[in-house]
């Protein structure tokens, strides 16, 4: 039931000449178990975000594989891959870019429910339930993204992810752009949701204090390699 990376590598090509590849990380393995948080630390540019995107399937690895429920995601058939897509979600750092600026929050929520096939009459109740879990009121649904604060935006982004009932969420610096006081609220909300729903987190942050608060196991990316604490 876990989500794991097996000897993952990611490199970018900088032009057509041979030898112009830039390796972000290589030979990287980690496992996230259901309901637990794996914390990923490292300096800016070390590759934490890239690793998050590769594990979530947003970018293909250059080598190695991502395994979901024991199956290699690259070898999955259509329906298996769709299940993987739904079950592993990502929450990004920038609260001001979390929603399409041309749509209201309500529209952004409803289109997700349309995607997963929730019938229209039931949608209102589902959305109301999710908003309650993230501690917000329904009046925000009529607003546009530029009319809500950073903290509200991250909560709403989390709520939208929860509509899909994911098993894992990759959190890429979710509170780095927030005030210290708002950060505390979001961290607590994340913990609450984890204990209620058993979601596994890959928590990425450059802030060590935050990572240690959230994670049960911690690793650090340095020079393209992952060092997991407690392992040599």
């Amino acid at each position, binding site marked *: 039931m876990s989500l794991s990376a097996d000897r993952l590598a990611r490199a970018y090509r900088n032009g057509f000449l041979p030898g112009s590849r830039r390796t972000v990380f290589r030979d990287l393995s980690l496992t996230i178990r259901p309901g637990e948080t794996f914390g990923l630390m490292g*300096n800016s540019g070390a590759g934490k975000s890239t690793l998050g995107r590769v594990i979530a399937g947003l970018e293909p690895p250059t080598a190695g594989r991502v395994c979901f429920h024991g199956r290699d995601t690259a070898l999955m058939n259509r329906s298996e891959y769709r299940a993987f897509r739904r079950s592993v979600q990502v929450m990004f750092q920038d609260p001001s870019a979390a929603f399409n600026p041309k749509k209201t929050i309500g529209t952004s929520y409803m289109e997700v429910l349309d995607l997963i096939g929730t019938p229209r009459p039931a949608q209102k109740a589902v959305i109301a339930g999710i908003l309650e879990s993230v501690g917000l009121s329904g009046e925000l649904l009529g607003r546009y993204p530029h009319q809500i604060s950073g903290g509200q935006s991250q909560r709403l982004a989390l709520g939208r992810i929860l509509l899909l009932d994911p098993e894992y969420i990759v959190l890429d610096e979710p509170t780095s752009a927030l005030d210290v006081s*708002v950060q*505390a609220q979001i961290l607590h909300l994340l913990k609450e949701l984890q204990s209620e729903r058993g979601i596994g987190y890959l928590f990425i942050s450059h802030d060590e204090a935050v990572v240690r608060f959230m994670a049960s196991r911690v690793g650090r990316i340095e020079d393209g390699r992952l060092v997991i604490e407690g392992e040599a």
Partner: protein
Amino acid sequence: MNPVLEIDALSVTFCGKQAVHAVDRVSFSLGGGEVLALVGETGCGKSVIAHAVMGLLPGEAQVSGRIVFKGRDLLALSERERSAMRGKDCAIVFQDPSRALNPVHRIGRQIAEPVLIHGAGSREEAHRRAAALLERMGLSPPGNYLPLYPCQSSGGMNQRFLIAASTILDPSLVIADEPTKGLDPGRVHEVEDELVRLTGGGRTALLLITHDLAVARRIADRIAVMYAGEIVELAENDAFFDRPSHPYSRGLLQSLPEHGFVPIPGSSPSPVSPPPGCRFQARCRDGKAVCGGQHPDLVSAADGRMVRCWQCR
């Protein structure tokens, strides 16, 4: 000693479709060489105060009150006069200053630029001052750094260069608006060191705008906490962190990592229609009847600090 900056009942309202009351009768003063940290959540109005002092507010802002800088009321000056002061007498450093460097000019030229713009010296004089400044920053020999382009040095170094450029004319007041937001811990310390070095001489006062209490603790002399456009507590650094008085201040400290990230429930009130009575009342654990009805004033407490709270009398 006469204060360098004195804010007296400053109010700023933005007139759009609805009137947004960003700052509501804020008063404080800043002495020469002092570091005052203006702390609060995003939206509490602290950046607006910084922009008001520098005269950078947009046209639809209505400003009332007084901003007295070295004896002159800035709000009574013309744009020309204020423009002449920017960079020379008062300077502002924004968030992520390294992005403000022009990538096609050398560092030396950019640090020397304010001198030339304000006509404070010839080209040679300007470069000499830039070199002297780098020496004082501990970057010696300056000849190694002046000819660099921004892309050739690290982000942290660029920030220090830009803080240097902003302060080369020895302004009496420097405003730093969220200088450490979103930075790695290592870079935060670099910026802090630079700000400390800046104010070490006692000639430059620093108004530090930040939401990061940890930075404020390390470098500020006094802390002013803002909430919903008002100052709710103003105290000396040690006194504040040892025993915060206002419930919001206490809540802020609790939400720090070392105290376990304890959140303050709820969110700040809308600046369009602030609630009657105490503005923090909805989120306050110790609220009583009087808090909802009457708006508290900022009054002095026994140990010299100022607090705006019915419970703290």
